């Protein structure tokens, strides 16, 4: 795992006097499942926005998929996938229309979109749903589709921001199997979650608190280091902010 997909050195992001990201440095590698954890307000969303080219760092070096976040944010956007729980697919478009739309946004050729659409519908067992509106799909199916659409263009990295919030326990596990499968294809999966058992499924995790990374290692090492039985215990020990 020597190929860096993300390289961050001394990343600082300020909003006025408020320091949202305070000197972050870390690397993420090809094919890795990287869990990005932290309490609400710890600075995760700010960091993800920078890593996905939506926001510029105040200072520091950020390289994502080989591109510099300070100068090449448009290139970053084309070379990553992104999915979040709250919004990913257009509810008033059909399954097929959503796939075509995203394929177009990612600059894929019509031929390639057609091929991948077929593969995707086959793989998800979605043939019966292709002309259904997203609004009519159960949440679990939507989330699986959203993830597949986010990696339609075979990006080097996909960001998943709380992808499994509210889904049933079976779907949640199927979703994680999709994550594993994606990682074995060499795509880096960068994921945030409030389910601490899911943190155990990651190759490595980082824990943020008040704008800083306070821990970064494999789940096993962190449990050993903090003499904890689970990642949840580690999290509660070290992620607690001083004031609320």
């Amino acid at each position, binding site marked *: 795992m020597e190929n860096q997909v993300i390289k961050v050195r001394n990343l600082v992001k300020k909003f006025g006097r408020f320091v949202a990201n305070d000197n972050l440095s870390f690397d993420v590698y090809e094919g890795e499942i990287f869990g990005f954890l932290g309490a609400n307000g710890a600075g995760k969303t700010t960091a993800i926005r920078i890593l996905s080219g939506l926001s510029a760092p105040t200072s520091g070096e950020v390289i994502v998929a080989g591109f510099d976040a300070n100068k090449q944010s448009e290139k970053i956007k084309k070379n990553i996938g992104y999915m979040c729980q709250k919004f990913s697919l257009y509810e008033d478009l059909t399954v097929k229309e959503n796939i075509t739309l995203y394929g177009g946004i990612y600059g894929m050729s019509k031929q390639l979109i057609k091929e991948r659409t077929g593969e995707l519908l086959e793989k998800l067992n979605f043939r019966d749903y292709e002309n259904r509106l997203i609004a009519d799909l159960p949440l*679990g199916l939507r989330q699986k589709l959203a993830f597949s659409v986010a990696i339609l263009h075979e990006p080097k990295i996909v960001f998943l921001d709380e992808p499994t919030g509210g889904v049933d*326990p079976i779907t949640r596990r199927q979703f994680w*199997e999709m994550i594993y499968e994606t990682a074995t294809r060499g795509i880096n999966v960068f994921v945030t979650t409030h389910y601490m058992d899911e943190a155990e499924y990651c190759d490595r995790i980082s824990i943020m608190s008040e704008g800083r990374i306070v821990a970064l290692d494999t789940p*096993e090492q962190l449990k050993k280091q903090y003499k904890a039985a689970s990642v949840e215990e580690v999290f*509660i020990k070290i992620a607690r902010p001083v004031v609320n």
Partner: protein
Amino acid sequence: MNNAIESSGLSKSFGSARAIRNISFSVDESEIFGFIGPDGAGKTTLFRIITTLLLPDEGYVKVLGMDSVTDYKKLRKEIGYMPGRFSLYQDLSVEENLSFYATVFGTTVKENYDLISDIYSHIEPFKKRLAGQLSGGMKQKLALSCALIHKPRLLVLDEPTTGVDAISRAEFWTMLGKLRKHNITILVSTPYMDEAMRCDRVALIQKGEILAVDTPRKIMLGFSRKLFSVKATEKYRLITALRQFPATITAYPFGDSVHATFTGDIVDPGLYDHLKNNGVTHVSVNETEAGIEDRFLELMNKTA
């Protein structure tokens, strides 16, 4: 003991979508009763009927001895409701929100302060701040204070911990536990299975139907097979290899291991060779106690 809630045969549809079907259950006074289930299970619809905000198509629910349809005016004074989406006025300050809720119910903050002091004291230093500018954990504490300020006999909390980090979730449940001494009945819903353990009794709900109602302990004991925790270095390969093994009934990832059940409730000695041949190393298999989520998965598979 009196029933705080008693429901029989409740059903509600929206067009062709059946949100809840034939829901019957009862909640004792002063109990913390949890509805555990994923989004779309029908939790919010059920809570809206109980809080008199929706009319059921069929069945009835008696809340604190009153009918949810005919006695709705009296009933509303006795219920504190914290809906899933943000219930606060973003452009009012912390203290303005609180006194607004008190005024609506014809009381004052001062009169019932003892009830909320444990919770409100955390956010009181920020009482001049607009609610819209609070952090997630603080909003949650303010919303709970507002739902309590008229001293309700029943507190209905719809997914109060969704999207909230593990630390704030733990704090929130500690606060609910402290409310016990005020004899308030608490009805709460959550998609987090681990929170079921904090309730006196829970109902597992899926696709509008109740799968089981009992104490968390008894629901766990309802798991029908021996459960094994399987660990190995290659987690994804382990899951797929386990599924291919003929004696495997179920295999689901659980934290750092895979929970599996096998025919005959035994570990076939051939399993180790099978895993080894599939490139899975450092295998360990141990019998383990089923948790609430194991039981939920089992019940879901039965109804699927």
